[in-house]
C-alpha cells in the first residue's frame, strides 16, 4: 500500500499515469477498430491482430533503416498491410467466413503462429526500434513527461479513427460494408459484391493494425513475438465497446490503457495484466446484471 501512499503524497503522478495510459490506449484502440470491423461485418474473430501490428512495426523499422522517417512508415505500413490483408482474405479467410465462429478463431490462431515464426526466420529474434527523433515535453518541474512521439501516435490514432468513420458513412465501399454487416444476404441480392466487401474489410483491418504497429515501433519496440498482448487487448476492448461504435472503441481503449497503468503502478508490473482481466470479468458481470434489469421491448 506504500504505492498508494505515494499517489496521495504526489498526486501529480496520477496525471502522468493517466496521460500515459490515454496516449497508449489510443494505439490499442486502432487494433481494436479493426477487430470490431471484421467481427461485425464478417463474423470472424481475428486472433492474428497482434501479428499484423508486428508486421506494421517491421515495415516502419525497415523504412527507418532505409532512411525514411518512421512517421511516413504509418501510411506506408497501412497500405502494405491492406494489400497483405486482402491477399490473406483471398487465400485463407474466405474459407471460414460463412463457417462457425470457432473455426475462424482456429484459422487466425494458426495464421498468427505462422506469421510469428516466419518473422523470426526472416527478421531474426532481435528486438528492434525505429527512432523518430521526437523530443519529450516536460510539465510540473519534470514530474510529468509526455514524449511527442506518443502525442503523435495519439493524434494519428484519432485521425485514423475519424477517417474510418467518414469512410464507413460516406463512401460507396463504406456503405456496402455497413449493408453487408446488417444483412449479407440482402446486400448480395441488392447487388453488393460481398466477396469484395469482405476482402476490403479484412484489408482495412490489417491496415489499421499496420498503422498501429508503425506507431509501436516508434514508441516502444518490436520483435516477432510481441503480438499476443495486442490481440488480447483488442479483444477486450471489443468485448467492452461492442462492435458498432468507433467512438466507444476509442474510449474503451483509452480507459483500458489508463486502468492498466494505474494497476501496474499500484500492484506492480506483474499484476498489470491480471488486473485488466479481472476488470474484464467484473464488467461482463455488471453488464449482464444491468441487461437483466432493463425492460426489453420491440421497437
Amino acid at each position, binding site marked *: 500500500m506504500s504505492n498508494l501512499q505515494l499517489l496521495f503524497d504526489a498526486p501529480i503522478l496520477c496525471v502522468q499515469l493517466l496521460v500515459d495510459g490515454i496516449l497508449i490506449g489510443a494505439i490499442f484502440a486502432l487494433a481494436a477498430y479493426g477487430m470490431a470491423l471484421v467481427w461485425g461485418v464478417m463474423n470472424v474473430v481475428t486472433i492474428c491482430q497482434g501479428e499484423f501490428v508486428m508486421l506494421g512495426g517491421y515495415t516502419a523499422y525497415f523504412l527507418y533503416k532505409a532512411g525514411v522517417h518512421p512517421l511516413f512508415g504509418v501510411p506506408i505500413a497501412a497500405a502494405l498491410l491492406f494489400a497483405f490483408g486482402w491477399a490473406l482474405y483471398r487465400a485463407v479467410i474466405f474459407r471460414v467466413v460463412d463457417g462457425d465462429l470457432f473455426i475462424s478463431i482456429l484459422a487466425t490462431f494458426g495464421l498468427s503462429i505462422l506469421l510469428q515464426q516466419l518473422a523470426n526466420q526472416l527478421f531474426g529474434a532481435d528486438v528492434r526500434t525505429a527512432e523518430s527523433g521526437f523530443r519529450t515535453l516536460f510539465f510540473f518541474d519534470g514530474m510529468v513527461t509526455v514524449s511527442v512521439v506518443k502525442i503523435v501516435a495519439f493524434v494519428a490514432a484519432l485521425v485514423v479513427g475519424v477517417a474510418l468513420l467518414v469512410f464507413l458513412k460516406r463512401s460507396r465501399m463504406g456503405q456496402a460494408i455497413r449493408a453487408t454487416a446488417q444483412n449479407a444476404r440482402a446486400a448480395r441480392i441488392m447487388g453488393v459484391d460481398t466477396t469484395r466487401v469482405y476482402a476490403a474489410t479484412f484489408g482495412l483491418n490489417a491496415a489499421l493494425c499496420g498503422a498501429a504497429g508503425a506507431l509501436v515501433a516508434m514508441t516502444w519496440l518490436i520483435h516477432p513475438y510481441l503480438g499476443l498482448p495486442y490481440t488480447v487487448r483488442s479483444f477486450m476492448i471489443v468485448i467492452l465497446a461492442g462492435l458498432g461504435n468507433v467512438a466507444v472503441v476509442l474510449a474503451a481503449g483509452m480507459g483500458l490503457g489508463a486502468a492498466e497503468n494505474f494497476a501496474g503502478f499500484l500492484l506492480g*508490473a506483474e499484476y498489470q495484466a491480471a488486473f485488466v482481466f479481472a476488470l474484464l470479468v467484473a464488467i461482463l458481470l455488471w453488464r449482464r446484471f444491468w441487461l437483466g434489469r432493463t425492460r426489453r421491448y420491440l421497437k
Partner: protein
Amino acid sequence: MRRPLGRGTPLIGALAVMVAAGAAANAKVEGDTIVLGAAVSLTGKYSTNGKNTQDGYDLAVARVNELGGVQVGDTSYKLEVVYYDDESTPARAAQLAERLINQDGVKFLLGPYSSGLTKAIAPVTEKYKIPMVEGNGASLSLFTEGYRYLFATLTTTQFYLREAVNLAAATAEAAGRSPADLKVAMAFENDPFSQDIRAGVTEDAERWGMKVVVDDKLPPEINDMAATLTKVKAVKPDLLLVSGHTKGATLAVRQTAEMRVDVPMVAITHCDSAQVAETLGSAAEYFLCASQWDRSLSYRDDWFGTAEEYAQRFEATFDYAPPYQAAESTAAVLVFVDAFRRAQSFDTEKVRDAIAATDMETFYGRIKFDETGKNIAKPMVLYQVQDGQYKVVAPAEWASAKLIYPRRLAD
C-alpha cells in the same frame, strides 16, 4: 554423415569398442595424447554459440600443444578433443555424453553450450564419476544438485548485477554517505534467469542495509515499462537495476530517457546483445551493463598473455572477435591442463580433486571453485556506455575507464 553405422551394425560396433577398450587399457590417454570429449551444438538453435564454444576449446588445445603440451611425469602429453554435435537438444546431449564415456572411453569432458544442455549432461558425468569442466552453463540451479564432478569457469547468474550494488555502495562511501542510506529500485523479468539475478542482488542490498523501494517483476510479454518507471521516478532511488533479456534492456534505455528518469546509477543486463549503444545512441549513455569478460580486462596468464592478446590470437585464427562464450570455453580447457599438471596422474578421482583445488589466474580471470563447483573468484565486470563505447569501469582493479557518476541525462 552423423551416424555412419547402419541399422544392423551397433552390436558389432559395441563389440568392437569393447575389444578396443580392452586393448588400450587407458583409452583416455592414447600414447602421448590426452583425449577430452565434448558434445557441442553445431546445428540447431544454439549453433552460433556452439561454434563459439568449439572454437574456444580448439584455440586452447592448439595453444597448449604449441607450448609443448602437458607435462605429467616424464612425458609431455598433447591434447585432443573428440566432438559430437548435440543438435541443440538436451536428450541428444545426454546420449552423446554416454557415448563419449562408454564407447570412446573419454575420461574428461568439456561442457556443451547453455545451461539446459549442461543440465542434461551433468547427471551422466555424475553417474560415471567423470569430471566435466564447462564454461557455458550459468544457471545457479546447476550447482544446487550436489554434483561432485561438475565445474564451471563462468560466473553464475546470481552474480550478474551484484557488482553494481557494491559499486553503488563504494561510490556512496567515497562521497561520505553511508551505503545503508541508499535506495534501490529493481525491475526483473519474471523468469528463472532474471529472478536468479534478483536473488543475488537482494542478498547484497540487504548486506549493505540498503532499502529496496521498488521491486517489480516484469511479465515476460511486457512491451511497456511506463508504470514501473513512473514509480521509480517518484521514489528517487540511488540505484536502478533492470534485467529482462534484450527486450528489458531496450525498454529500460529507451523509456528512462523518454521519461527522464533521473537515477544517478542504472545497471542492466544484455546491453551488448541488445546493442543499446549502437541503436539507441545518447539514451544509452552512462548505463552500466553486466558482462562475463571483456578483452580490455587486465587479466593475464602464461598461455595466452593478456586478454587482449588472447582476443588477437582468436581473431587471427577464426576471423571474428571472441565473444565471452569462447573465452570461458578456452578457460575450461586451461583448468584441465592445470589440474593434470598438479595431479601428475590421469586417475579421474585425482584429477577431480585437483580441479576442485584449482586456484589460477587466466586471461579470462581468476578461477577458484567453491564446494559446489562454480567459479567464485572471477567477478562479473560492469561496462559503462561512454561516448557510445562500452568501457569497463568495475571492479576497480580491472577497470580500463573511470566510472562517470552521477549519471547525466542526455538532452
